[in-house]
């Protein structure tokens, strides 16, 4: 369980995180979404005790980071995959981490095997590809067998097989009852992996909900209609209060009227329908629309001169 309460953090005059409160519950994967520069990494660094909030608190299972006695065993994090001394081997990197929290050497070997790096464990980490570095970062997060895990963009640089591996790993970790908090700029990936969502823009909370509710509550149901009498159908639907737009290929996109009503209208008008399908907005579309609103909103605020 991660609980953030009214977190605020500024760098100079820039407010990176603004009065942010959310809870991340155990047992499911929680996605952390926001455009670049929205404060995701800053928030994660505050959870890990790296950056000090100006005000507000964030706790891990009820305690602040600095009050954890064995931090690596309670919370694991992958914040930057490439943040490793390039001249040190993967094994020694993990060993140095393990020693701080009395974790046995045998666990280091096991973790390396689990992430598929046992063959290159003695090689310099600087020679690793981004994908291998991500695997090493995931290994270091899992090293202490913690109940709370944070991953900042864990699938960056992974091949399709690696992405699938991470997706399954995150889900299985959540199924073991752990708290999993994952940021990603790939909204489609979050739709596949996450159950809960924390969405932020400009450091402020936009939504703290489930993926399904987030999509449902932020999109108007749209229906795609094809008919030889498209013009006529559009007029009738508009007259009935629906919004209709016409695509280049002649299909209609209708909002404000569901599929069954459109079908009834078409029958009443004697028009044959070639297609009638509800369009599910993707998480990505919803997200883009929401955050572009945020940007527009901020664009209207007066800008201080001479900043």
């Amino acid at each position, binding site marked *: 369980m991660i609980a953030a309460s009214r977190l605020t953090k500024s760098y100079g005059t820039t407010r990176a995180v603004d009065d942010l409160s959310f809870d991340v519950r155990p047992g499911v994967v929680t996605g952390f979404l926001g455009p670049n520069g929205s404060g995701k990494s800053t928030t994660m660094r505050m959870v890990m*005790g*790296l950056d000090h909030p100006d005000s507000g608190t964030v706790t891990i299972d009820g305690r602040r980071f600095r009050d954890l006695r064995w*931090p690596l065993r309670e919370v694991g994090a992958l914040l*930057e995959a*490439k943040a490793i001394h390039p001249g040190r081997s993967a094994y020694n990197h993990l060993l140095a981490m393990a020693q701080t929290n009395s974790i046995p050497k045998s666990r280091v070997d*096991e973790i390396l095997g689990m992430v598929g790096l046992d063959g290159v464990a003695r090689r310099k980490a600087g020679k690793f590809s981004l994908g291998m570095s991500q695997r090493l970062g995931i290994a270091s997060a899992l090293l202490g067998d913690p109940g709370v895990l944070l991953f900042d963009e864990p699938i960056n640089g992974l091949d399709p097989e690696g992405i699938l591996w991470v997706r399954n790993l995150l889900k299985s970790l959540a199924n073991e009852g752990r708290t999993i908090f994952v940021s990603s700029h790939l909204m489609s990936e979050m739709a596949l992996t996450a159950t809960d969502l924390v969405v932020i823009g400009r450091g402020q909370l936009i939504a703290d909900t489930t993926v399904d509710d987030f999509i449902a509550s932020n999109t108007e149901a749209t229906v795609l209609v094809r008919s030889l009498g498209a013009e006529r159908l559009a007029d009738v639907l508009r007259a009935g209060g629906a919004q209709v737009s016409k695509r280049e290929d002649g299909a209609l996109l209708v909002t404000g009227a569901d599929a069954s009503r459109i079908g009834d209208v078409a029958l009443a008008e004697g028009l044959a329908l070639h297609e009638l399908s509800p369009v599910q907005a993707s998480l990505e579309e919803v997200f883009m629309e929401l955050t572009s609103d945020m940007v527009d909103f901020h664009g209207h605020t007066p800008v201080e001169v001479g900043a």
Partner: protein
Amino acid sequence: MTTAALTSPMPVLDSGDAGLANQVRSEWTKLRSVRSTWICLIVVFVAGIGLSALVSNIEAGQWAGLGPVDRASFDPVRFSQTGSFLSQFVVGVLGALAITSEYATGSIRTTLSITSKRSTVLTAKLLVIGVVIFVVAEVTAFASFVVGQAVLLAHGAKALPAGASVLTLVHSSTIPYVSLAAGGALRAVFLSGVYLLLLALLACAIGFVIRHTAGAIAAFVGILLVLPLIVTVLPSSVAQSFEKYLPSNLGLAMTLVTTRKTDFAGVLFPPGTATVLLVAYAAAAVALAGWLLVRRDA
């Protein structure tokens, strides 16, 4: 695929916390697992022995042509410790790199996110760097001393009697060498290693404060090389009162055999005072490093 596949038992921890002993183990793993550490330590040892042999050989070769004044400043101990002029920069680099490499690679954020007390990281790093450099610096200092005296002996040097005065040296017809039993020799050689230890700790603390490799090393080299140059352009009355406080001159004061008066030794502190002052410099830098480490964002 899942962590359930991991069978290695994790020790159950009922009391205490991650603690200093664990952090020291980790810092030692980090220090020994990069090549730059070993290169620096080998350079310290090889430069110490090599320069001792070279300089002792050159000085011994010139003895016959030296006038009374030069013979009076002939210091067999100091010749043997010439390597420390190079080593002071090498241990500075090693001390600074121990922390700035973590900032350069970003791994400092891993280090600080697996320990709840940041001050433990600073303490552990200084302990590990300190012990390693102290051992290597002392071994090098004493080995260099032995090599230097052996080279002088090969040139037909005679042992300088304990507590020998300048006068005996001026009138001596043979090259002098000293044993560790001679006045001040043991202290000078031992403090030669202590000087390197204190500089390494100072450089490490500067690294914690500046957090950039190039910046920290520039600051460290500036203190040793540039500061003395700045002092020399001050009016001589001002310069004389400042000169003896420079870390490089404290080092000189610690390693000179002061039973033998040289022109320069007149303005230096006694070895004990010089050591205490350099310890105070290092301690002040460490205190600042600790204060900043706990307060700054990583």
